[in-house]
């Protein structure tokens, strides 16, 4: 499991105008592991993931994937790299002008020129993996939030990627659905033997899906360690983050939305 770093982020800096979001992120993701990045809402987790897959350009620092600096890759090389990545966007980002089946099949059609019954078979296979067999004919607007997330996952694993990036896979889902997604991440992980980066502010999800955990705080990584170390560490930032999470007990969940200042729902 403890391979060398597949993704190596050093001193990553990114600002939007005066808003310094990432202020020197150092993070190494090893081959084959599931790395969970924890952090409160708005701390820049989505921005971090978008840098890893080259959708945003950093203002400073480096992102090395398999020994190659991705900010300096030519367009073609970046494409080749991205084909080995799958990303589940925070809002699912399904193509709403296409059916579920077409969404999942698009990478196959575009990159492997899969057609006809072979395509149908592969699409159905991926949908079955996320527990949605028989939904290929539906439109994204006909799906619930949880179903959208699962379709997004099916689309992300369509090309059997080596690396999967998840942006808040369980946010906004009910506990049962969240549990299903967590298990899905685990099982996908095992089936594809992929390296995963899971971004979340859900502690439970982090401990369940992750091998190692990193906590983002104030634009930097405040803590990095195994899931066990997370619960035992004396690290200030971790203790504060966990304490904030504790304040939200079951039953309080919908009762007081002003408690969601930290986006822990």
């Amino acid at each position, binding site marked *: 499991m403890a391979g060398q770093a597949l993704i190596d982020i050093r001193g990553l800096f990114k600002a939007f105008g005066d808003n310094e979001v990432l202020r020197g992120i150092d993070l190494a993701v090893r081959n084959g592991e599931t790395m969970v990045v924890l952090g409160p809402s708005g701390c820049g987790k989505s921005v971090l993931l*978008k840098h890893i*897959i080259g*959708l945003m350009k950093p203002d400073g620092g480096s992102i090395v994937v398999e020994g190659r600096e991705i900010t300096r890759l030519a367009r073609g090389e*970046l*494409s*080749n790299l*991205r*084909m080995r*990545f*799958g*990303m589940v*966007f*925070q*809002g699912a*980002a*399904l*193509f*709403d*002008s296409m059916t579920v089946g077409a969404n999942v099949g*698009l*990478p196959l059609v*575009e*990159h492997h020129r899969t057609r006809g019954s072979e395509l149908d078979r592969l699409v159905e296979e991926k949908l079955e993996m996320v527990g949605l067999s028989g939904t290929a004919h539906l439109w994204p607007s006909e799906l619930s939030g949880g179903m959208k997330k699962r379709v997004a996952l099916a*689309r992300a694993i369509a*090309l059997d990627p080596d690396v999967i990036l998840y942006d808040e896979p369980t946010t906004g889902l009910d506990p049962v659905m969240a549990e299903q997604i967590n298990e899905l991440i685990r099982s996908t992980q095992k089936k594809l033997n992929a390296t995963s980066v899971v971004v979340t502010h859900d502690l439970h999800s982090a401990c369940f899906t992750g091998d190692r955990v990193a906590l983002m705080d104030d634009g930097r990584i405040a803590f990095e360690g195994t899931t066990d170390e997370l619960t035992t560490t004396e690290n200030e930032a971790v203790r504060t983050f966990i304490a904030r999470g504790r304040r939200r007990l079951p039953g309080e969940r919908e009762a007081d939305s002003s408690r969601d200042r930290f986006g822990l729902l």
Partner: protein
Amino acid sequence: MTSSSVTARRNHGGFGTGLFRTLGGNALELVTEVGAAGLLLWRSSLALRKFGRSVPLVVEQMRRIGVDSLPLVIITAVFTGAVTAVQAAYQLKEFVPKIYLGVAIYKSVTIELGPVLTALVVGGRVSASIAAELGTMRVTEQIDAMDAMAIDPVRYLVMPRIVAALIMLPIVTIFADVLAISGGFVVANLSLDVSVKTFVEGMKLYFFPHDVLGGLLKAFVFGGIIAVMGCTAGLRTFGGAVGVGRAATRAVVASCVLILISDYVLATLLFKVIFGEA
């Protein structure tokens, strides 16, 4: 009255300077937009290498840009022709024999009114819808998702729209020309007492193929403007639903302004320099 509102007013100046500032700002915005559009056009032409795989996408866009615009084009064309007939008859009355009515209508329609009015109405419709569609895809991260799965949005979304518009605008314009001339003829015939024979004779008298050709060349360029400005505004969208609305407006304004400017440039180029020599 706080001091800040006073300075705010001072900064805006009077109505006159405010107007100029707005015009200046808009002009600058248009220049930036055109620059971005040029870049997008270049990237789309590079994407033509994979044209073979995009044929179904182009066909779909041809339907949406061309066929779906036909009802609007029919109404515009018929009434444009009819008005041209009435106006031409009024302006030529006393000086010019009725035989010239046909040629007046034919010339003004094929060279100018057909291509320009078609482009303006189709442009309003199509560039706004392209900008809103791509803009929505942008703000809902669908464009990012496409990029992330290594599918080039320029190849998949932009290039098919530009190619389809380049093909469809001339075709729709031919359609509009025919309808406008027919509309003009109907008015000429019914209310101005011009017979079929006189009308057609007049048209034949000064028929130059390059009039039609020049008009269609204009339509081709206008098609490119419509699609590329719609795509540019769409891809540059930010800021949620409001941003999508802004993108649609920007696309329509930019394509209308550029259609009118390039019409002047093309008219000079085609009918003074190129065909003028012949």
